[in-house]
């Protein structure tokens, strides 16, 4: 039996999820929800670069009990999700909510009660935050007898992203702005703070420690050179060329869980931070304890030096991973008991069926 899937939203992650659902024989696409009038009536295949499927995108796709919704808008609409759950559809989202407990009973109970009423499961997915900031560090923590501090650091070259989504990277994140303007928090950063705070809370709760608070310790470095993006826009010398977002979970007055993300358009920085020139998206997880461990993870098209794609396509790979992580969760979420189920409640979400063509 193939799992019935409804793709909700076809933005940058949504269309990759849609593509995976169509290409993987484990899944049957039964509906596509779109937000823009322009996309209504489009064939699902056309929305993700595949052949025609006969499934047409609409603003109100029909939902049946046992459907699995891959919910990919930028922001979660809790009323909408609760309705889907009450109708009996499992919901897997890439719009944060990996640990809805963080938002308090108002959010958690709404999702959990709706799931119980409809016999459906809610699960929040993602790569960072989520996979790199919770699943992998907690997995690695199994190697230590005592943990004193958990640090997760992402270093991403965001040239491609800054070029394709300048409204996010330049306007909201502040590349090319003065340091003062960039550090002036806006709504976008508030969203990121909430998402990474979910991760910190999840780790602390699971490990059984009480958080004093979560602190934001953001910094910027300016570019020493002019960077010209593929879209023609420039990042001038002296303006922001690297952003360090950092959230720190404080326990007993000490920084114990630290999640940070370096986004850079250049490694020529003032101050001269030691961020590598690599085009890879790299994550480093450190657990200081007895014994201490360091783990580095990277994704790209290929790590085979003989491949033409060697070390290429890192930014695309991170997006593919985000979509795939959500899609790979479908069989596990489908089998799970109703209600909110986080990574802590589900088995390992292995890529079942990922070996194609055997």
């Amino acid at each position: 039996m193939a799992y019935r899937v409804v793709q909700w939203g076809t933005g940058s992650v949504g269309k990759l999820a849609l593509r995976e659902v169509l290409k993987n024989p484990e899944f049957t696409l039964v509906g596509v929800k779109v937000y823009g009038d322009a996309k209504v009536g489009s064939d699902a295949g056309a929305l993700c670069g595949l052949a025609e499927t006969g499934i047409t995108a609409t603003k109100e796709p029909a939902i049946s009990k046992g459907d699995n919704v891959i919910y990919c808008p930028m922001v979660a609409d809790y009323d909408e999700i609760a309705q889907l759950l009450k109708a009996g559809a499992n919901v897997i989202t890439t719009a944060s909510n990996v640990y809805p407990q963080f938002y308090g009973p108002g959010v958690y109970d709404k999702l959990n009660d709706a799931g119980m009423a409809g016999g459906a499961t809610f699960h929040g997915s993602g790569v960072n935050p989520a996979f790199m900031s919770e699943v992998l560090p907690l997995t690695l923590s199994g190697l230590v007898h005592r943990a004193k501090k958990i640090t997760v650091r992402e270093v991403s070259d965001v040239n491609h992203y800054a070029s394709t989504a300048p409204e996010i990277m330049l306007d909201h994140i502040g590349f090319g702005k003065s340091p003062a303007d960039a550090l002036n928090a806006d709504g976008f950063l508030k969203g990121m703070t909430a998402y990474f705070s979910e991760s910190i809370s999840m780790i602390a709760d699971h490990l059984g420690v009480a958080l004093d608070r979560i602190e934001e310790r953001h910094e910027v470095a300016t570019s020493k050179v002019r960077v010209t993006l593929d879209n023609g826009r420039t990042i001038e010398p002296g303006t922001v060329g690297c952003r360090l977002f950092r959230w720190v979970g404080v326990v007993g007055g000490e920084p114990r869980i630290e999640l940070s993300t370096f986004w850079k358009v250049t490694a020529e920085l003032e101050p001269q931070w030691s961020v590598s020139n690599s085009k890879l998206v790299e994550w480093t997880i450190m657990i200081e304890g007895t014994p201490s461990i360091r783990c580095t993870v990277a994704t790209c098209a290929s790590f085979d030096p003989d491949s033409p794609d060697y070390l290429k396509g890192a930014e695309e790979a991170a997006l593919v991973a985000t979509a795939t992580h959500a899609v790979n969760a479908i069989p596990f979420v489908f089998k799970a008991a109703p209600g909110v189920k986080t990574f802590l409640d589900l088995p390992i979400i292995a890529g079942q069926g990922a070996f194609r063509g055997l």
Partner: protein
Amino acid sequence: MAKRNPPFRVIQWGTGAVGKYCIQRTIESPHLRQVGARVFSDAKDGQDVGEIAHGKAIGVKASKDKQAVYDADADIVLYTPLIVDLDDICAILASGKDLITPSGFVFLKDQAVLDRINAACAKGKSTMYAAGIHPGFAGDRVPLVLSALCRNINKVTVYELVSMADMTESPDLIFGYLGFNMDGETAAKTPPPLLKTMSTIFKESMQMLAAGLGFEIESFRTSHEYALTTEDSYTTPGLIKKGHVGGQHFNYEALVGDRTVIEFKTYWRMAEKLEPAWNQPMKGLTYIVEIDGDPGVRCVFEPIGDRPAELGLIWTAALVMNAIPEVCEASPGFKTTLDLPLIAAKAAVHL
């Protein structure tokens, strides 16, 4: 509702290197209580369990008597003997205690063995689980976790790179059992004694990875290579003379048809200068998990700073200890990494 409630009462079965770490951690953990130990030598019989693990006396005596373990009121047995005995395992489980072992059993394809274990678990309402660094973590749990990110996988390769030059293991183990320091001529005639044991336990690990990824392995291929030192090499266990065995490479492959889909490559080295000169860094202890797929994923983990000589054993002991809460809460029966939730340093954290 939890099957058992903390503090979990722990019996240690076997007090070798891993067993001693388990005792030390059990004694210092508020959620655990050491209530017994099964030992094998007359010298240890009747000794205080804390003292066996080089700590303070805790007022609990170790015993050679198996029946005492079966009769004891306890929640879990950490089963770490040198030689595994399925009769003992089943008797422990049937006596109502959960069991965690680092000695094989990460995944069971042998239905007869599985049936025996499950019958014992049913009788004792108990759970069995196997934990360890490799097999148990580097070659199965980690690639399974990472595979969540991939929409297509062609091959999984897992490297174990170990420098053993500073190991505090006995020369008997390193030079006798593991076969280092043989001259080239003897080495050419002598298959490594460990190959058979290791290929069995790594097969289980590969089968679990395959099961999690949704396919069946059709055949296995194993190979081994000695590397000889090109200069005299001074190591903690002793001198390795020029031209003698200073490195060993075990290679385990799982195939579907004639295609290798999983490969475990272990490189153990005692010396820096080797012939063949492996293109691997002389490092303490490093695991590399590589998924050739879409996207490709590469994960490297290693200790920070100086490596304790027995790091592999410490990691294995940590994985055993950290599994206790999940195993004590699991439903009865034989469980694998595919069945249990994420195992974290839940009870070990002193943040």
